[in-house]
């Protein structure tokens, strides 16, 4: 019985892969893989249907890159501050408080992006669209700060304390110790946290569905509406698309693309973590 429940997780994985593969397979019977990968238009819901996934990928990467350029500098600074500077009592209060950022439902962040951040950005960049990648990306970045900061801080704390002391003993400041000894020693754990944040940003749905728009567009302009893979799936799901139609299959082909990205990232992080663990034992 217990064993069966363990196997459910395997069945889930098999289920995901089977569902994505089978529906994508019948999608690729109608649309060539070459068109899917090379066409620069994604218009399955229009009369003139084109099936190039690149605009969705570029939208996904654009919001992800913006999110990471917010979350990485902040998250890593916070991690170093919490592990190397903050007194224990301060850390014990601040760390769980920061983790609230990751517990807030994403639809709430979507509201924030659309109703607060975009109007604010409009005062700086008057020609920014009501839907844009910048606002969604920034808010997504705020959301994933704790992924970077908490996991990186854990990695820094896992470095033997004696290394820190050795560095202090040689006359290094906390800053020198942090960046010349601790961060390099914790690098694999920090890389894992960055990869996981990356993977989280790629798969994030509601913020981009609400604030980034629904216009697949092959661009890296952060001021115009775009569409991510996830937002496209939501857009189709909200409509009434009959099962078995080509439109229905597109969401599985899009989902498959997303899954391949996150699958690679997750396995990379798992592999790094495993290597890292062996180093310390």
């Amino acid at each position: 019985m217990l064993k069966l429940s363990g196997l459910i997780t395997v069945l889930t994985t098999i289920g995901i892969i089977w569902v994505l593969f089978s529906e994508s397979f019948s999608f690729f019977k109608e649309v060539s893989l070459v068109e899917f990968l090379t066409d620069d238009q994604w218009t399955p819901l229009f009369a003139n249907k084109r099936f190039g996934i690149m605009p969705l990928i570029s939208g996904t990467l654009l919001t992800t890159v913006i999110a990471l350029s917010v979350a990485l500098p902040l998250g890593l600074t916070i991690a170093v501050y919490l592990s190397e500077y903050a007194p224990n009592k301060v850390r014990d209060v601040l760390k769980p408080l920061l983790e609230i950022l990751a517990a807030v439902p994403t639809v709430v962040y979507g509201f924030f992006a659309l109703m607060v951040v975009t109007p604010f950005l409009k005062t700086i960049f008057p020609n920014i669209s009501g839907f844009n990648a910048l606002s969604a990306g920034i808010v997504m970045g705020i959301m994933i700060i704790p992924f970077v900061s908490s996991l990186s801080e854990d990695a820094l704390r896992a470095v033997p304390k004696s290394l820190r002391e050795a560095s202090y003993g040689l006359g290094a400041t906390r800053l020198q110790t942090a960046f010349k000894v601790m961060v390099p020693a914790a690098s694999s754990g920090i890389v894992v946290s960055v990869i996981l944040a990356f993977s989280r940003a790629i798969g994030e749905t509601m913020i981009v569905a609400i604030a980034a728009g629904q216009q697949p567009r092959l661009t890296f302009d952060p001021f115009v509406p775009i569409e991510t893979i996830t937002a496209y799936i939501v857009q189709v799901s909200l409509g009434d698309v009959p099962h078995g139609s080509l439109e229905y299959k597109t969401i599985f082909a899009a989902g498959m693309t997303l899954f391949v990205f996150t699958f690679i990232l997750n396995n990379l992080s798992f592999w790094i973590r495993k290597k890292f663990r062996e180093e310390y034992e």
Partner: protein
Amino acid sequence: MSQTGHKIQSKNVDVFYGDKKALSNINLDITPNSVTALIGPSGCGKSTYLRLLNRMNDYIDTFSMTGEVLIDGQDIYSSKIEVEELRTNIGMVFQKPNPFPKSIFENVAYGLKIQGVKDKKLIANRVETALKQSALWDEVKDDLKKPALSLSGGQQQRLCIARALAVDPKIILMDEPTSALDPISTAKIEELIFELKQKYTIVIVTHNMQQAGRVSDYTAFFYMGELIEFDETTNIFTHPKEERTQNYITGRFG
């Protein structure tokens, strides 16, 4: 003998961790160019005392102290002292070998680099000198680029000593430097300590009575946060004045 090492004096030193008193009224003068062993049972305060000398306790949130620690007459806890500069004058070797996960060369060069030394030739010279001083040069001279963690435990500890020597300190603090090592490595380190005292003032915490007897000129016996007895090592081991010292040395408690 030239007096190149420094003198360390402690006056009425009390140390607290929160409400807990860890050291009580310590008065101790450490002679330059000698080896002073700190002995006593676990938790007696000997490591706390050692770490007091290079302000290693500074980053412990609950740490506080009263009294004075003077190095060559200067109070190291005065606000005029730059703690980083102080520590470059005081090398420290820890209980377990703790080389950085960098190459052998980078480990020894670390202290110079954080001081902002850029002259590559100078760094290379100092690294070589330090490795020779710590009797490691012949074993690693062809492998300076290898990761320090690939060395054996005994070699790692000698590397840590070289790392401390490279910044040219005046005092060396050793916190049970051989407790994690095999007897052969221990013997090598002890030999090294004997060499080093020509140039440096050395303070060593040890659990090992025989080691204290072998390497040190002076011995301080700590018990429950107090300095019970301080004298020349031969006197402590042959004619201790205090009964508690006698009991500890003869192994009646520990």
